[in-house]
Structures are given as C-alpha cells and as structure tokens.
C-alpha cells in the first residue's frame, strides 16, 4: 500500500515542479494559492468523527468532529492545553482515541501506531523533533522503512526531494551538528520520503527565525499545490493569516468552530480561542526615575569549544525600564543572561550590579549562590523551563523552594539578609532544616494570583501545560521582589492569552522599579514592550535603540548585519 501511494505521488510530482511561479510578491502568491485550492476543495482527505480522549479524569478531546480537504492548509488554533496536539497525535498513531472514529479518503480506519498512520499517507512533524542525534540525516530519513539498507540510493532520493521543494540539507551530516532549522528540514524530508499525502506540522515556526519561517512557508505552499493536505498548529496569528486557507478552533478539548482564513480577523479568532473578549494591547508607561542597575562592560564569553558567543558587549540596564534584547536565535542571548546570573564565567569583562547608594559589585566571579548571599535580588526566567528553571517531577510547592530553600524563606527573610548579611548567611549555614510551609503558601498565592490551571499545588509541574509551567516559574521569580528580572523567550510556545498575562506581569515589575531584561523573538512584541532595544548580531552589539519610534525593518536589518551605532 505504501508503495502504491508513493508511486502515485511520484506521478503527481512529475507534473508539479513547473507550477512554481509563485516567487513573486505576496499578493500575487496568495491569489494563486486560493485558486488552486478551490479546484480540489470537494475531496475529503481526513474526517474526524466524534473523537474523545481522556487523560485521567480530564478530557483532552471531547466529541470533536472535523474535516480536512485535499490541497488545503488548515490552521488548527487553540490555547495551550486545548487538545490540538492530542488530536493530531491520534491521527499520527501516537495516541489511540477512547471514542469516535477517523476516516481517511472516506474510509473508516483504525490508526494504532505511527506505522499505520504512515501507511495511510499521514505524516507528522512533531514540535519536539523525533530524530536520533547520533545518526546522519539520511539514516534518520530512512528509519523504519522496510527493505535492504542502501544509503547511496536513499541519498539520491533525498537530494531529489530537496530539489523539488527547495530544501537545503546535507544527507551525511549528523543530527547533533545541525541547527534547529536544519533538523526541521530533515523531519519534513522524512515524511515526504515516505510519500505522505497528509502532513501535520506542530508549531513548526516556534523555534525558527522570521527568515527561516518564510522559507518553510514557501515549501508548505509547494506541497499544497502538489495536492497534499496540510494541518498546521500554531499560536502566531499573523502566521495563520499568512499561510492557511481555513482555520479550525479548539478550546478546552472541544471543537468551537471553523472559518475561511479570508473571512477571519485576528481579534475574532482570539476571542473564539479564549472564549471571551481579550485585549491585545500592551501598555507601555514612561519609565519613572530610571537609574543604572546593571552595567555590563566589555563582556566576552566563550562556549565550550572556545568560540566567542559574546564579544565585547557593553550596555546598561536601568531600574523601572524594560531593556529588550533582539537577535536571531543563538547569537549569544542565552550566554549573556547566564553570565549575568552567575552560571557562566566570561573570558573577560565585567558585570556590575549598582546598589541604591551607587556602590558597584562585580558579579563576574560570583556563582548564583554567592550573588544571592550578597543580598542581590536577581531573578532569571531561563529559556529551558523544565530543564533549568523548574524540577519537572516536583510539585508546585517544592518548586517554589528552589530559590529560597536555604532561608526557609519568606520575603522578610530576604530583607533581613540585606540588613546583616554576614550574620544571616552564617545562621543560614548552621540551620540544617528547610521551611516547607512558607513555600506552600507562596505556591497557593501564585496559583491563585496568576490563574494557574492545576488540580492542586501538589501536582508535579511536568503535568501542567506549557503556559501554566511558565506562570509557575515567572510567579516564583517575581515573588522574591527582584531588583533585576531577566527573561529569556518568556512566551515561547505560549498561547495568546497566557502571553499577554506574562507581558502584564513583566510590565508590573517594571512599574515597581525593577530593571527588566527581556530577550524575545517576536519583533512586534519587542517593539511594543521595550523602552530600549539592544540588538545583537553574531555576539556583538549592533546597536541600542529607543523602543518608541523604532521600526521593525530597521531592527530586522540590524539583527542580520552590523548596523550603525545609533542611539547609544
């Protein structure tokens, strides 16, 4: 069966490549897309009938019915935990539905494993890539296929696919040497290699730069014009508008409705997704009495291989102000923040913390513990939430202890530390026991204040959805009333509603006089939120500009090439 599908696809593809005149301006491209969709609109590729799936006592999907047509791109929209991924996983054979049925090409089927799914021509590119690190691209692509092992032949075929859709991938490169974007390409090649007709992409752009995302979209259009049906899960509204033909919306595991993308507008979609009207404006107040809080001077950081990730970076972060850091992912943001928080030692340079009385402390040779013991309230929301910021298997209450377990620790404790630091540190060391009660109360407060959706504060955080995990983390970091708050990709993978809650929290910190350093990837948000924006390019500062009045194109240009040293 698999073979037959493949042949069919090859035939179709044989005529397809000449279609591609859509490299012109956006409007023309869009028009082309719509036309070809209408031709094949009538054929159903997939039909979900009354699908339900439970995890424990919670319905992840409840009675969902949904259709997908050939030659269309369907955007599946919903908040975190609304059951989009679960639904798609059932199509891909990862989960099995408790109730209901799935029909492919009008025939009811039972998809019990990914193998079943593939033989029905269904392929999924997961949010977390399913690749084997120590194998090459080719080995990953042919993984799971029957027949004799013939790497050469497979390589040729991979190159053919790459040429057809415009990918670039080195078949002999090991996955662990690849960038995120390359890995994603391998994932897509993998499903195409199997002659897939129905492609599911789970948040494909979450980790890509705007340029990489644009490249991906072009590939997706080509596939669509090949007659493939594509489902794309995303949070980013402008992407929904840009790429899809039709939008379907889920909320809390239930199917809410669908509409043609042409007729949809972002506010309406958001409201359907959240279930009530949401304001999409970020308030930006003028900083009150900004004073230098963190002064970074000529900082250079090497990675493990001795390559400079940050070279000669200098800037100042002021209290009561949000300093946005823009840059293509992986150009030193992570290292910079980890260095300020004491996790990474730089090659040279200084990071000064400026006290109220303007005395300066160099943080460069201190570890996180020593910084804390000096009474410096520095909070850090790292990029890797469950791998760094939180302990997945511990409950919310125990995670609250992570920063404070040494004190037994309430806010008063931390204030006391400021008063008589040496004595307190000594007392702390002598006290072998932790206080478990205060963190419990804190957990309760965080859950209530930030509307964390959880059965109880005794639930392991790894059981929570992405947005709720982030709220727990941000909640804890804010609870210590930081003087400096650093966040790395604070809203990555979060739905719109949770994102705006996080922006709100960050703004409140700014108003209370905290110096906020915000590393983000969504330029629109960065421009709306930040008072000043530091643009990084290849580990160097390509400029620091005022957030008010900055424009996207200018910043985008600075991210990719060394711009002028303006506004410093």
């Amino acid at each position: 069966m698999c073979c037959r599908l493949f042949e069919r696809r090859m035939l179709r593809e044989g005529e397809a490549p000449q279609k591609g005149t859509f490299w012109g301006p956006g409007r023309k491209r869009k028009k082309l897309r719509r036309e070809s969709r209408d031709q094949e609109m009538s054929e159903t590729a997939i039909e979900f009938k009354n699908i339900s799936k439970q995890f424990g006592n919670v319905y992840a999907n409840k009675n969902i019915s949904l259709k997908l047509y050939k030659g269309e791109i369907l955007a599946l929209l919903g908040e975190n935990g609304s059951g989009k991924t679960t639904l798609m996983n059932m199509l891909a054979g990862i989960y099995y539905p408790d109730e209901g049925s799935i029909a492919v090409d009008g025939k009811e089927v039972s998809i019990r494993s990914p193998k079943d799914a593939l033989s029905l021509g269904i392929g999924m590119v997961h949010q977390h890539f399913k690749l084997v690190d120590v194998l090459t691209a080719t080995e990953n692509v042919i993984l799971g296929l029957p027949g004799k092992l013939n790497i050469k032949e497979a390589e040729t075929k991979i190159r053919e696919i790459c040429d057809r859709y415009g990918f670039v991938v080195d078949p002999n490169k090991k996955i662990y040497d690849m960038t995120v974007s390359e890995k994603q390409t391998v994932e897509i090649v993998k499903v195409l290699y199997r002659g897939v007709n129905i492609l599911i992409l789970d948040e494909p752009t979450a980790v890509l730069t705007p340029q990489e995302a644009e490249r991906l979209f072009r590939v997706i259009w080509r596939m669509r014009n090949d007659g493939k049906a594509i489902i794309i899960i995303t949070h980013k509204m402008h992407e929904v508008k840009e790429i899809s033909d039709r939008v379907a919306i889920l909320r809390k595991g239930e199917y809410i409705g669908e509409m043609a993308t042409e007729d949809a507008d972002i506010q309406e979609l958001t409201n359907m997704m959240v279930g009530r009207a949401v304001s999409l404006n970020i308030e930006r107040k003028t900083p009150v009495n900004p004073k230098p809080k963190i002064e970074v001077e000529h900082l250079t950081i090497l990675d493990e291989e001795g390559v400079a990730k940050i070279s000669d970076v200098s800037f100042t972060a002021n209290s009561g102000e949000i300093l946005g850091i823009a840059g293509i992912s992986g150009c030193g943001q992570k290292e910079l923040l980890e260095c300020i928080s004491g996790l990474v030692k730089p090659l040279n340079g200084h990071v000064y913390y400026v006290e109220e009385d303007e005395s300066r402390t160099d943080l460069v040779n201190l570890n996180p513990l020593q910084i804390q013991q000096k009474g410096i309230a520095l909070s850090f929301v790292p990029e890797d939430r469950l791998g760094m910021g939180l302990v997945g298997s511990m409950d919310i209450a125990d995670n609250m202890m992570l920063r404070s377990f040494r004190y037994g620790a309430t806010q008063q404790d931390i204030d006391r530390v400021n008063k008589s630091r040496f004595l307190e540190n000594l007392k702390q060391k002598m006290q072998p026991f932790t206080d478990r009660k205060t963190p419990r109360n804190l957990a309760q407060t965080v859950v209530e204040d930030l509307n964390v959706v959880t059965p109880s504060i005794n639930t392991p955080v790894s059981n929570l959805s992405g947005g709720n995990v982030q709220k727990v983390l941000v909640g804890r970091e804010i609870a210590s009333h930081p003087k400096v708050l650093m966040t790395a990709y604070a809203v990555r993978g979060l739905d719109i509603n949770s994102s705006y809650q996080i922006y709100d929290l960050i703004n409140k910190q700014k108003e209370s006089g905290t110096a906020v350093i915000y590393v983000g990837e969504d330029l629109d948000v960065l421009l709306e939120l930040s008072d000043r924006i530091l643009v990084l390019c290849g580990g160097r500062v390509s400029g620091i500009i005022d957030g008010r009045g900055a424009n996207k194109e200018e910043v985008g240009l600075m991210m990719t090439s060394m711009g002028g040293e303006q506004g410093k």
Partner: protein
Amino acid sequence: MNEKKNPLFHIVKRKSMPLSKQMMVRLIAVAVAIAVCAIVTVITTGMNPLSVFAATFRGAFGSGRKIWITLQDTAILLLIALALTPAFKMKFWNIGGEGQVLMGGLASAACMIVLGDKIPDPVLNLLMIVSSVFLGALWGAIPALFKAKWKTNETLSTLMMNYIAIQIVAFFTIYWEVPKGSGKIGIINQSTNAGWLMQIGNKYLLPILISVIVTVGIYVYMKYTKHGYEIAVVGESERTARYAGIRPGKVIIRTMLLSGGLCGFVGMLLVGGIHHTITTTITGGQGFTAVMVSWLAQFNPFTMMGVSLLIIFLSHGASEISTSCGLNQSFGEIITGIILFFIIGCEFFIQYKVIFRKKETENTKEGPAGQKEETGQDSAEKPENEAGNAKEDSEEKPENETTQVDEEVKS
C-alpha cells in the same frame, strides 16, 4: 488494515492512586508471590503445602533465638538499604554497598587485630567506628568523584569497587590468617573479647536499636533538611541545581560520603558486634539485596522496614526448608527472586491502568468519569492475577502474556 479492528486493551497512565489502594496492590502481589513460592517448594521438595508454611515460620520465628536473629538480620539489611537511599534519591546508582560494607568491616577488624588489648576498649571501639566510617566513606567517594568530574558510569564503577574491596579483604585474611595456612582469620580476640561491641540487653539488640534510630534519621534527612532537598534537585536535573546555586559535584560527593560512611558503619557492626571475624563473604550479598529493598520501598525508610523483614523472613524460612530436606541453601535466593519479581511487576498496576475495549465501541456512551475509573480498577486487578498464574509454571506463560501485549502494538 482498513477494516476496523480495535486493540484488545490499551494502557493508560494513572494520575494517582490512593495510598491504601497502592498498599492493597502490593499486598496482593506479595500474597500471590508467596503462593507461587509455596507451589515451587511443594514441587521441588514434595512437602505438603501446610508443612511448607510451618517450616518457613519455624525457620524465621521458631524459637526466641531465631526471632532475635531474624530481627538482627533485618536490621542489618535495613541499615544498608538506608545507607544507599540518599544516593538513589540522587539517581546515583550505588550498587557498591557490598564493597563499602566490606571495607568498613576490614577497618574494624584491623583495629581489633592490631590494637586489641593494647589500648582501652572504649577507645578501641571509638577508633573502630571512626576508621570504618572513614574507609566506607572513602570507598563511596571514589566513584562519586569520578561521576562528579567526568560523569563516569557509577553503576559499573561502584561494582568494580566491590571486587577490589573483596580482593583487598582476601589479601588481609591470608595476611592475618590464624592458624597459618588455614586461609581464614577465625574469631578475633576470642579470649579477651577486645574490641567487641558492648551488648545492650542481649547480643542482638544493639543493631536493631541502631537501625530504628537511623531509619528516623534518614527519613528526616531526606524530607526536612536542606541537604535532602538538594539531593532531590540534583537527582532530577543538574542544570536546575546549578541554576539554584547548588553545586552538583559537591552534593554528589557529600551524599556518597554519607552513603559509604553509613555502609562502613554497618561493616563495623558486622565485625565488631556480630561475627567478630572478617571474611570476603561476610556481607552475604546484602549490598545487592539492599538496592532492591530501597527501591521497592520507593525510598521510604519506614516502608523499607517492612520490605527487609519480608525478605529476611523468607530467606530464613527457605533455608529452614532446604536444611530439613537436605537441599542446597541457595533455595532462599530463588524464593527471594520470585518475590522480588512480583513486587517489581506490581508497580505497573499502581502507575498504569489497563482498559479493555468493549466489543461495541459505538454503544459506550460517555459515562461519568467516576464510573470509568471504576472499570479501570477492576480490570487492573485481573491482569495482576494473570501475571500471577503466568509465573507459576516456571515462567512459561510470560511468553503468552507478552505476545498479547505485543499484539497491541503490532498493526
């Protein structure tokens, strides 16, 4: 492929299970396991089942002395399990308990042989404690150092440390052999009792009391202290630990010093308090058994008490049976193995539930959640019994059982 087929059953992870129910599942598993052991015993020995149980009880609790010995052995096993627990909680697979105990025992024996009758007994005892704790801690800290510095696989490094310890002890048993050429040390200071630990009440009570104190101590250490919290964090993620200002290497070494030191202390109890000699087999494989005790008890010190008692009870019972039937003493290990398999297996039914598909899926309405939960539980009990039967016939049936599971995944 395209016609509709439903899998026979599928497996779902449970959110949680009430503690009482967890205990029920475990008790059922133990009961089934004991029944299986009885059947195995009846087959191999030809005794009637009742006398098998009678013999088991006779072996473990047959006389006052036997009860004390059972309790004392339980205490030793429990102590080793407790010693290993902090390391396991840190996901440091210390299976070197055997070697750490041996080295502790060796240190004590060395003190007794070299310094016996030369210094006052209390001083000698103190010296024994210090030296055995030190040597045990050292034996634990070496693999910890490797792990902290280079992430050397601790399962194998601790294992190798066991064999190195055994050879060192073998060296000294010949070095100090009494009489020459016998290849063993014999009872040390038999005439003077120098260095023998004092007796409280009778000669069995001391380790028992110590084990109770240590149980409470480890429980408090793991649950309420900063160290305990640090261990839990390091076990989950070293990066998180660093983020929170915890130095993982330091915690690993510190915890293994504690773990090894406590093992060394047990070695001292064995040499100074119980056997008054040292051999390479003085630990009797309890370093390994303790790994399983600690894990089966889910690292809970109080549960470990019960698990160790169960294992010691069975092995004493089995040894009684094999003695009375003239069989090999290793019978006990077989029995222990069978019990362990059942307890290990039953964890599955605590963490997962098996949902059997009804024949007509269309007819099943969305019932209230509670009802669903119930059916899940019922079905969870059923395979438990099946698994029980499966292993009766000397593991013939797991094959059938597994092919069933296999089929679930096959298309």
